[in-house]
């Protein structure tokens, strides 16, 4: 389905999903346009990571209702790797370790897969090395990380930086950053968010999942959504995050309860 209003990158409508037959997402609506940055906040266990993984196509989650249109096509029809190649990127909250697989090899394969997709020639290991080192400079990453196993023994913050390195390599249309700020020290937060800001442009879009305003001081969102028990219960501008920081989630829940007359 090709749409006229092609400035929409992602349109989620009534999305429901279960894991082990437990419903986690209970009807999500979300529209993301080109050039926008959306922050998703919400209590632990409200379903933020689940939403991210469902969008990326994790097999453990079953979509039981709703639709997801990405760049005019039905995202839910695509295998996870096809979604990635189409430009959906997920920076994981908990990046997994893959012992024995050299980070450089992994990054090159991911990058070359993308180039092949775009009909471009693959980079050989030497060309890639130059290319990736430049990207690592942006993130002030030590090139030694290329020779180690993927995330193997990386500290929490190093893993997060490696995620953003991948984002820099793959230049996604839609980047979902799941708590990329957690685990980063103060300097790293600045470096990584600067990196993300340089990658953000008028053509792509970013969804930031975070618990803290400190992230949003660096990467300023156009919208802030609050999730609760598998739904987006409140949407506002960047000021909403500040308000949440002072008033807590109880305030949102309380407001809802009042509105529902409970």
């Amino acid at each position, binding site marked *: 389905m090709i749409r006229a209003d092609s400035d929409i990158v992602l349109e989620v409508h009534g999305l429901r999903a279960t894991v082990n037959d437990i419903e986690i997402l209970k009807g999500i609506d979300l529209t993301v346009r080109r050039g926008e940055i959306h922050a998703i906040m919400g209590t632990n266990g409200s379903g933020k990571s689940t939403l991210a993984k469902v969008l*990326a196509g994790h*097999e*453990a989650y079953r979509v039981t209702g709703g639709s997801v249109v990405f760049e005019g096509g039905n995202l839910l029809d695509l295998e996870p*790797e096809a979604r*990635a190649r189409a430009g959906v990127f997920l920076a994981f909250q908990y990046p997994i370790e893959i012992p*024995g697989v050299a980070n450089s090899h992994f990054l090159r394969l991911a990058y070359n*897969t993308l180039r092949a997709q775009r009909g471009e020639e693959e980079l050989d290991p030497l060309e890639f090395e130059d290319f990736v080192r430049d990207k690592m400079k942006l993130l002030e990453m030590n090139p030694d990380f290329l020779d180690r196993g993927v995330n193997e023994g990386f500290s929490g913050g190093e893993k997060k930086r490696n995620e953003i390195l991948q984002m820099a390599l793959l230049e996604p249309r839609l980047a979902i950053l799941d708590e990329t700020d957690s685990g980063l020290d103060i300097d790293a937060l600045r470096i990584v968010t600067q990196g993300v800001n340089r990658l953000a442009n008028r053509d792509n879009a970013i969804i930031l999942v975070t618990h803290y305003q400190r992230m949003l001081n660096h990467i300023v969102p156009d919208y802030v959504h609050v999730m609760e028990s598998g739904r987006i219960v409140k949407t506002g501008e960047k000021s909403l995050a500040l308000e949440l920081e002072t008033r807590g989630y109880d305030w949102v829940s309380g407001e809802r309860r009042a509105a529902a007359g409970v």
Partner: protein
Amino acid sequence: MSAVLQNLVNQPYKHGFVTDIESDIAPKGLNEETIRLISAKKNEPEWLLAFRLGAYRKWLGMEEPKWSTVRYPEIDFQAISYYSAPKPRKKLNSMDEVDPELLRTFEKLGVPMHERAALAGVAVDVIFDSVSVATTYKQKLAEVGIIFCSISEAVHMHPDLVRQYLGTVVPVGDNYYAALNSAVFTDGTFCFIPKGVRCPMDLSTYFRINTEESGQFERTLIIAEEGASVSYLEGCTAPRFDTNQLHAAVVELVALNDADIKYSTVQNWYAGDENGVGGIYNFVTKRGLAKGVNSRISWTQVETGSAITWKYPSCVLLGENSVGEFYSVAVTNHHQQADTGTKMVHLGRNTRSTIVSKGISAGHSHNSYRGLVRVAPTAAGARNYSQCDSMLVGDACSANTFPYIQVRNHTAKVEHEASTSKIGEDQLFYFAQRGIGNEEAVSMIINGFCKDVFQQLPMEFAVEATKLLGFKLEGSVG
């Protein structure tokens, strides 16, 4: 187990085809007459017949070993034919004379032998069923005094050497299957590297089982004299059959002072179908004697085939400062069972051994590492390092590690490390999220896991091994 993993591990066997070469098969059954028949067919000297009969009598008094984890129906040793040979043809002087059917077989296996021989400088002593039908590069090797031929040929051409060493590393009564092999072996490889000679090329043999219900009893003997060195490659694959085939090989290595023998195997015999029907029973005895000071025996194996693998390539470290190594990748899938490992027996002073074992189990398979490190009272300063890692693909398979350590000298140092990991859905998802499909992901993970072993293989063998793991677990490995 997820559907993705399920599909990946359920690739059909790619080498399942039967070559139609007329066979000369002995009647089924085993008795002294059978042994005399084999010996007569091969026109053997009296001492070898005596060796065989001695082994047979030992075997009669022995019991099939039951201590391993492998389970299989009773083998009826009387239902097996103990000799099968392609009809004799005129002596071959070049590859052109080799049966085109045979060449096509190798082609199908992806082993264009003539190309390999020419391009890679590998001398291929082709064992087809039980009789050698082609030998290349023998001439070139002969120039430096290396003998590389079938063991039956060696029996006739170099009887003293064979007689001096045969059965000295693996005695005829060593174990049930070794005794059986000693009684009925039909052919195999003989390799002799004289004093001071470093073999100029890797020596390679491709084994192939081609006749249904003909047991295979290969016999290999490799001797490296003082200061000699050799790298020997053994690779094998077999056609698809429904009835089980017994294979009981014996390999003996002898390294004298400062000698170095590197023995690499890639094994891909028919493993049975996905329900566990058919497949090769592989009961192998491989042992190297590091006899001289500073000698080295190194085993590298990539075991991917057979319904049952029972195999413990071992090193007896007799010479002072001698070194034993064992690098192993064992992959099991479907209903395959592998019980494999090594024995390092330290007898000499300052002997050293290294064990690196990587077991990968998929499907409903069972994969066990069984290793023994024994340090004798005489082995002052002996050292061993063992690392045994298991990887599980899916939920229905199992992996076990049985390390036995017996140290009788307090100056010895023995280290053992073990780990178990699992290729999980989350790892595959991580790859997929970066645009990398499951097949490629599994291949990368497995190759990363096996890296320490593959590094030990000669370059082109490593490439082949990587491919084989691909066939085994997913279809194709990049």
